[in-house]
C-alpha cells in the first residue's frame, strides 16, 4: 500500500489533488482511496488530504488518517514553517514542494528526497486561480508524478480530464510544465 498525504491551504485544491491522483492510479487499473481531512472550509486555513494506492496483494483498505505516509505533497511552502507537515513521513519518502527555491535550500533532513517546483507561477501563467490564490493542484501533481513515477504523466492527464471541473486544457498544460521543470534534489 502506498500512502500519500497532501498539505495545502483552503482554496489551493489539495482535496481535488488527492482525488485526481487516486483517479490516475485507478485509471491505471489499481485499487485506490482518496479522503480529505475535512475541516470547516475556510480559505487560507491548512487543509490535509490523503490518498492510498494498492500494491499487488493488498486486499484490505482501512479508513483512518494517514500518519506515516510514504510521500508528501506540500502545496504551500509556508506550511513547512508552521504546520510541521513532515511528521511521520517514512525515510526515503519524497517531499514535493510548491516553491521557487531549490530543494537543497529548504533545509529538509537528508533522510528524505525533496523536489521543488514553482507551481504558483505555472498556475498563474495558465490562468489558474488568482495572484493572491493560485490553484496549484494540477501543477504539483505533474511534479509529483515525475519525482515518484507512481503513475505515468499520461494517466495523470487522463485523470485531470475526469476530475478537474473547469479549464481542463490549462490544467493539463500546467501539469506537463511542472512535470518538465521540477527540480529533483540529489540524495546526499
Amino acid at each position, binding site marked *: 500500500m502506498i500512502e500519500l498525504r497532501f498539505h495545502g491551504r483552503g482554496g489551493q485544491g489539495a482535496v481535488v489533488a488527492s*482525488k485526481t491522483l*487516486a*483517479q490516475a492510479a*485507478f485509471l491505471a487499473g489499481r*485499487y*485506490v*482511496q*482518496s*479522503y*480529505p481531512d*475535512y475541516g*470547516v472550509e475556510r480559505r487560507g486555513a491548512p487543509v490535509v488530504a490523503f490518498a492510498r494506492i494498492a500494491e499487488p496483494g493488498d486486499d*484490505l*483498505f*482501512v*479508513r*483512518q*488518517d494517514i500518519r506515516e505516509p510514504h510521500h508528501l505533497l506540500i502545496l504551500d511552502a509556508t506550511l513547512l514553517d508552521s504546520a510541521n507537515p513532515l511528521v511521520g513521513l517514512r525515510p526515503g519518502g519524497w517531499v514535493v514542494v510548491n516553491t521557487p527555491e531549490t530543494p537543497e535550500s529548504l533545509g529538509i533532513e537528508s533522510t528524505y528526497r525533496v523536489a521543488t517546483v514553482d507551481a504558483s507561477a505555472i498556475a498563474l501563467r495558465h490562468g489558474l486561480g488568482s495572484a493572491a490564490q493560485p490553484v496549484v493542484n494540477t501543477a504539483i501533481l505533474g511534479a509529483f508524478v515525475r519525482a515518484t513515477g507512481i503513475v505515468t504523466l499520461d494517466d495523470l492527464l487522463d485523470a485531470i480530464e*475526469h476530475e478537474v471541473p473547469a479549464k481542463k486544457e490549462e490544467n493539463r498544460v500546467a501539469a506537463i510544465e511542472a512535470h518538465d521543470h521540477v527540480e529533483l534534489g540529489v540524495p546526499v
Partner: protein
Amino acid sequence: MRERLLLTGNHAAAYGAMLSRAEVISAYPITPQTMIVELLSELTASGRLDAEFITVESEHSAMAACVGASAAGARAYTATSGQGLALMHEMLHWAVGARLPIVLTNVSRAMAPGWSIWSDQSDILSQRDVGWMMVFAETVQEAQDFVLWMYRVSEQVYLPGMVGMDAFILSHTAEPLIVHDQEAADAYLPPFEPIYDLDPAEPRAYGGLVNRDHYFELRYKIYESMERAGSLLREAGEEFGEVLGRRYTPLEGYLLDDAEYVVVSAGAMTSNVRQAVRDLRDRGVKVGLLRVIAFRPFPITEVRSLLGGRRKVAVLDRNMSPGHSGIFAEEVRSALFGQPDAPPVYGYVVGIGGRDVRVETVVDVVDDLTVREEPEMALYVGVKGLPIGPLRRDSQITRLQPLEVQP
C-alpha cells in the same frame, strides 16, 4: 451500461437514487450530506434522471414533501444528516404511520452543540424507535446499493427505509465501485405501484383521527410488517446477488468460525476492525468480527446463533445513550439475554465526534477485552488523559471550581 467508477460515498448514494429511478427528490442541504442532493439536482436538471426536485426551506419540509409525493404514488428520496434528521423527526413518524416507502440516506454526524460536522452515529440511532428500517453501509458500493435494497423491501412492506453512512470516512471517501446497468437495476426494482394512492378521480381521506378502538391495530400491523421485513431483507439481499452481482445480508461475519472473542461493529469503521482482527490473528488471538448491517429490523435470531458460546464479546459504539450505554451494546445484550450460551458483552464507546477510530484503537479494545474480568455497560476509549475504562465514580470526578474574578 455497467461501469466501474471512482466515486465518493455521497455521490454513490446519489447514483443509488438515480438507479432506483426516484421520481421525487426533496431535500435541504447540510454538511456532510450536501454533495448527495447537489449531484441529484444536477442529474435532474440535465434530464439524466427523470424526477421532480423540490427545494424546500427545512428538513421538516423535505420529509413532508416526500410524504406527499409518496402518498401520490411516486418513489420519493431524500438525504440529510445530524440536526437535519432531528428536525425531520416528526415527519419521520408520519412516513411510518402513513405506510409510505420513502428512502432516506443519512450521513451520520455528531449532534450540536458543540457544533460538529464529524462522524458519530448518535443522530440516526436517535431515530431507532420510529419504525424506519435501518441499514448501515461500510463501503462506497454499499452507499449506492443499499438505496436499491431499501426500496425493494420498503415497497413490499410499506415502511420507509434509511441508509446510514458515516460522515467523511465514507461520505467524502472516494473509492472504486460498480455502477450497475440501469436495465439490471430495473429488473431488481420494478416501478412502484402502490395499493392506494392519492387520486382525484377516486378521492379518499388519509391520516385522520383514529379512536382508541382502531389505533392499536394500525400499529400492530406496522409491528407485523417490520417483522416481515426481516425475512424480506434476506430475500432481497439474495436477489441483489442474483440480479446485480452482490449478495447482501443483515449481518456479516469475518474470521468468525473459530473465534473465541468477537468484535461487533457497524458502519465504515468496520473496515478498520477487519484489519485489526487480521493483525490480532497474526498474534494468535482468536478473534472475529460480526458486522451489524441491518439495525431495524434487528436480526435477533442470527445474533444469538452467531454470538452464542463465545468467550467474550466487545461491541463498538460510535454513539452513546447517556445514562445507559452504547446503543449497539444495548441491542446485543438484549438479544442475548436469557440464552443459555450467552457470552458476556463488553460495551466500548469509541470515536465520538469523529475522533479517529484506528486499527490500533480496535487492537487496544481487544487487548482490554481479553484481560478485563467483569463486563461493563460502557467502557470509554480514547478520552484524553484517561485509560480505557468505565465512567469515573463520584470520588474521582474533579469538581468544577468557581471562576476567579480578576480585580
